[in-house]
C-alpha cells in the first residue's frame, strides 16, 4: 500500500502545483469521470506554440489530483504539438505506481481533459480514442 500512496503522490495531493484558474485562457476545458463524479478543469495560455501558463481546478482523489498536478508541471513550456503527443503510458510512467483498471481512470482524467483542450472541444473526449 505504501507503494501506492507514495510520499510524492500525497505531496502533490496536499500541495498541488499550478492550482487555480487563468482569467483569459487561450484554451480551457473541463470534464468529469462520470463514474465517480470527479471533475477537472484545465486553463492554458499559449505563446508561440508553446504552453506559457497552465492552471487546473476541480476536485478528486489523490491519484487524479496528483496526476493532473504533475501533468501541469510537465507541460509548462512544452510546445503544444508535443503536448498532443503525450500518451497514457507517459502519464502512468510519470505517476510510477501500480494501478488497477478503476484507478487508471482516475490517473488519466487529467490527460483526458488536457487532450480535450488542445484538440478542441470533443477532440479526444472519448476514453477509447485517448
Amino acid at each position, binding site marked *: 500500500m505504501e507503494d501506492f500512496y507514495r510520499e510524492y503522490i500525497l505531496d502533490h495531493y496536499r500541495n498541488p502545483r499550478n492550482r487555480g484558474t487563468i482569467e483569459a485562457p487561450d484554451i480551457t476545458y473541463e470534464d*468529469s469521470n*462520470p*463514474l*465517480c*463524479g470527479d471533475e477537472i478543469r484545465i486553463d492554458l495560455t499559449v505563446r508561440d506554440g508553446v504552453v506559457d501558463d497552465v492552471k487546473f481546478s476541480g476536485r478528486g482523489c489523490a491519484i487524479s489530483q496528483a496526476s493532473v498536478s504533475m501533468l501541469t508541471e510537465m507541460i509548462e513550456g512544452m510546445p503544444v504539438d508535443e503536448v498532443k503527443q503525450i500518451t497514457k503510458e507517459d502519464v502512468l510512467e510519470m505517476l510510477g505506481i501500480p494501478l*488497477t*483498471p*478503476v*484507478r487508471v481512470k482516475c490517473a488519466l482524467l487529467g490527460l483526458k481533459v488536457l487532450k480535450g483542450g488542445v484538440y478542441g472541444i470533443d477532440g479526444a473526449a472519448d476514453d*477509447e480514442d485517448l
Partner: protein
Amino acid sequence: MAITTPSTSTIDVESIRAHFPILHQEVDGKRLVYLDSGATSQKPLAVIEAEEEYYRTYNANVHRGVYKLSEEATAKYEAARVKVQRFINARSGKEVLFTANATAALNLVAYAWGRANVREGDVIVFTEMEHHSNIVPWQILAQATGARLEFIHVTDDGYLNEDDIARVLELRPKLVALTAVSNVLGTINPVKELTTRFHEVGTTVVIDASQAAPHMPIDVRDWDADFVAFTGHKMLAPTGIGVLYGKRAVLEATPPFLGGGDMIREVHLGNTRYADLPYKFEAGTPNISGAICLGVAVDYLTELGMDRVREHEKELVAYAMQQLSEVPDLKVYGPPAEDHGAALSFTLADIHPHDLAHILDRENIAVRAGHHCAQPLMEHYDIPATTRASFYIYNGHDDVDTLVSALGRAREIFQL
C-alpha cells in the same frame, strides 16, 4: 418441396446434447423432445455454471465500485459487451446496449428515437409477419404522435408481398420495422436488400433479429440497418437479458429513454447531463449475471460456428418438411427449407393446436400451440392458431421421427 439430405450432419447432435442437462430428464421413460426453442432455448452447462460462478465468487454492482469484486464484475460485464459486438460484427461496443429482452429493445427505439423523430402524418411501416413485440410499440407510437401505420402483407406461401413493398416505399416512410426471420412461418427475409431500398427513400430501418441471432451468422455492418434487436434467452442465455444494436451516429443523436443511475454524467435537482454511449441507454443496475452469461452463450455459439448452426438447421427443417408431408391432412406453412429458419408451423386436420400440443406433451414432446404472438398472421391465414415445432442445435432427425409418429397417434385419438 426441395429436400437436401447430406449424408453427414455438420453438427454432432449427441455431443451437443451432452451439454444440456435438461435434455437428460425422462418422463415415464420417454426422453424430452424439446421442439420449442423458438419460444426459449435450453441452456448449456457452461452458461448455467457461469451464472453460478458469478454469484458464488464475484457478485457485485458494476461501474462504481473500487474493490476487487466490483472490478471483476465490471470487467466481465464489459467483456460480454465486446463478445456480443464481435458476434454481430458491430463497429464498437458503444453500439451494443444491454436491455431486458428484445421487447424492451424495440420499445427503447419506439420511445427514445420515436418520440424525438416521428411527427403527425409520418408513415410507420411494419409487416404482417411481425411478432407482437414489433407491432404494438409502433401502434402506441403512432397513437402518441399521430403517425400513420402502413403494412407489408405476406403472400400465401409466406413471403413478403412485393407489391406492398413497392407501394410503401413510395410513401417514404419515417421508419420500417421488419423481422429478419419469422417466428411462425420461418421466412428468412432479405434484410440487407430491403435495408438498402428503404434507406434510399430516407427510412430508418429497425430489424427484429430475435429469430435470426440464435440461428445464423448476422452481420450488422453488412445489413446496415439502423437498429437491430434480439433476445438472450432464445440463444442459450438466461431470461432477462436482450440487446439493442444501434448505429453510433443514430444513438448519439437519440435522447435517452429510461432515467436513473448509471446513465448520467451529472445530476442536479433541476437538470441532468447524460453519460456517453452505451451507458446513456442503460439506466439502473443492469442484469449483470445475465449479460455475462450471454457472453458465455455467444462464446459457445461462436465455437460451434454460426454457419454450421445454420447448415444443421436447414438440413433438419428440410427433413422435417419431408417427413411431415407424409402425414395425411397436415398442412405446413412458410417457404421451402432454403428460405426457412428454424421454426416450422403446421395444422393437422380439425385438431385444434392446443389439443395437439397436449397430446404431444403426453409423449414428452414440447411444441408450442397458439398464435405465437403473431395474431395478424393468423388473421391472414384465417386460422386461430398453429402448432409450431422449432429446432435448435440439440435437435436431430430422431426428434422429427418421434414427432411424426406422435402425430399419427393424435390422428387415432381424434379418430381421423
